[in-house]
């Protein structure tokens, strides 16, 4: 499927409203009085790309870090694949983590390992019975998916910002997750590379049938990828709708994101 065709297709042909992530009344306070989340309610449906907008410090990253158990919320409920991740054992949480990919803002590649080792690392930890040939095949397949097969022997320090994000995405994809959480995937990149990353997100959604939560400040990325957008303000959901709906929202503050 070409990128041009992808953009012209409706983003979701038939909406499957099976929720795969449900967040209810999520609260998180750092220190004594730095309340970041003050009752966030959020649902991600199967096959959906949900974009989260909001000013810096509004709790977007904290929300998705709570989903994968990197930050423990003070109060609330987070259900992923119908399991409350706050009340399950570490091993059960790890089973869910394998099904939920996370792309960090910086890519978070392991500096001491080559691109090949970065990708093989996660794979070998979860599929210990794979042969060296099978690992190599999966690594190359993941790299081809992000269009960077030629970078397999490079070290992270030799990669550009956009390449690091792509390799980070390939590392996330190698476990074939059903949900991908993107933490500002286009931040710090030029317009062309940002667009390439946004197209890649869309491409992955169609190829691998993933659902995603995308945190971004990049409205071009939001326009291209979002099936639905929510806007966080001061730790709560302030507005929700499609790109077109929110672009014409009555609230001037919401509209200011789209100008």
């Amino acid at each position, binding site marked *: 499927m070409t990128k041009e065709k992808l953009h012209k297709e409706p983003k979701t042909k038939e909406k499957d409203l099976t929720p795969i992530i449900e967040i209810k009344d999520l609260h998180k306070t750092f220190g004594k009085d730095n309340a970041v989340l003050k009752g966030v309610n959020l649902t991600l449906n199967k096959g959906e790309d949900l974009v989260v907008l909001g000013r810096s410090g509004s709790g977007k990253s904290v929300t998705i870090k709570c989903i994968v158990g990197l930050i423990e919320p003070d109060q609330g409920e987070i259900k992923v694949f119908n399991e409350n991740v706050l009340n399950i054992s570490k091993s059960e949480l790890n089973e869910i*983590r394998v099904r939920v990919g996370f792309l*960090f803002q910086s890519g978070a590649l392991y500096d001491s390992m080559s691109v090949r080792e970065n990708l093989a690392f996660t794979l070998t930890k979860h599929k210990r019975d794979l042969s060296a040939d099978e690992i190599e095949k999966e690594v190359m397949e993941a790299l081809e998916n992000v269009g960077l097969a030629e970078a397999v022997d490079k070290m992270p320090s030799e990669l550009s910002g956009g390449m690091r994000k792509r390799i980070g995405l390939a590392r996330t994809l190698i476990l074939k997750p059903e949900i991908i959480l993107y933490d500002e995937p286009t931040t710090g990149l030029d317009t062309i590379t940002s667009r390439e990353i946004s197209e890649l997100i869309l491409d992955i959604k169609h190829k691998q049938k993933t659902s995603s939560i995308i945190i971004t400040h990049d409205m071009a990325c939001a326009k291209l990828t979002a099936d639905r957008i929510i806007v966080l303000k001061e730790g709560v959901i302030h507005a929700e709708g499609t790109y077109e709906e929110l672009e014409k929202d009555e609230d001037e503050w919401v509209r200011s994101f789209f100008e």
Partner: protein
Amino acid sequence: MILSLKNIFTEIGETALFAKKFFKEVFIPPYETKEFLKQCYIIGYKSLPLVAITGFIMGLVLTLQSRPTLVKFGAESWLPGMVALSLIREIAPVITALICAGKISSGIGAELGSMKVTEQIDAMEVSAVNPYNYLVVTRVLACTLMVPILVFFADAIGIIGGYVGINIHGDVNFYRFLTQIIQSLEFLDLFPATIKTFFFGFVIGMIGCYKGFTASNGTESVGQAANSAVVTASLSIFIIDMVAVQITDLFF
């Protein structure tokens, strides 16, 4: 003053909790054998030249400094035994551990600290790989096993340094020099000195890992992690040494 004391005790408590996790994780599979061997190579093999040079200088200097006093009392023949005893019981373990605190603990602190601030440890965690098991257990185990070996190595090289030192002013046969050393050593000279080196190694690895794992607030904290790892590990070595000597004195 009270706040500063409180911070010190909080830090000790948190380090103890961090270390407690090691004893739980070390027995839980998967065992990261490949990473453990890699760390043994980095910590053990790559420290050999530094330990060898300092070990040789320790033996040589100790011999040259002690010789005039022993000559005054006509006890020059005791020199090999005295040098070997000083090296094996105290000087080689402590100096080698201090060198390792400077080289290894700071290295681990900086490495893990930079992994922490660039979200590499979080990336490991979200991909369902236990970062404590992969990063901490392997490094602490490698330190605990490699530091005693490095100390043995420093002992041996220090004794050779002592032999060179004695031969600067006289002519002593190496076989005779070695016989004198063996005659003056007892099992109890070796045993407590060896046991304490395992504790030195454990503390060097654990403090480096703790400081790295708890680094926050960007790249500045990486330097702080490395720096405070050296200071804390060095201080801990002296405290462990003092306790070990007191216990040895009590029981042997």
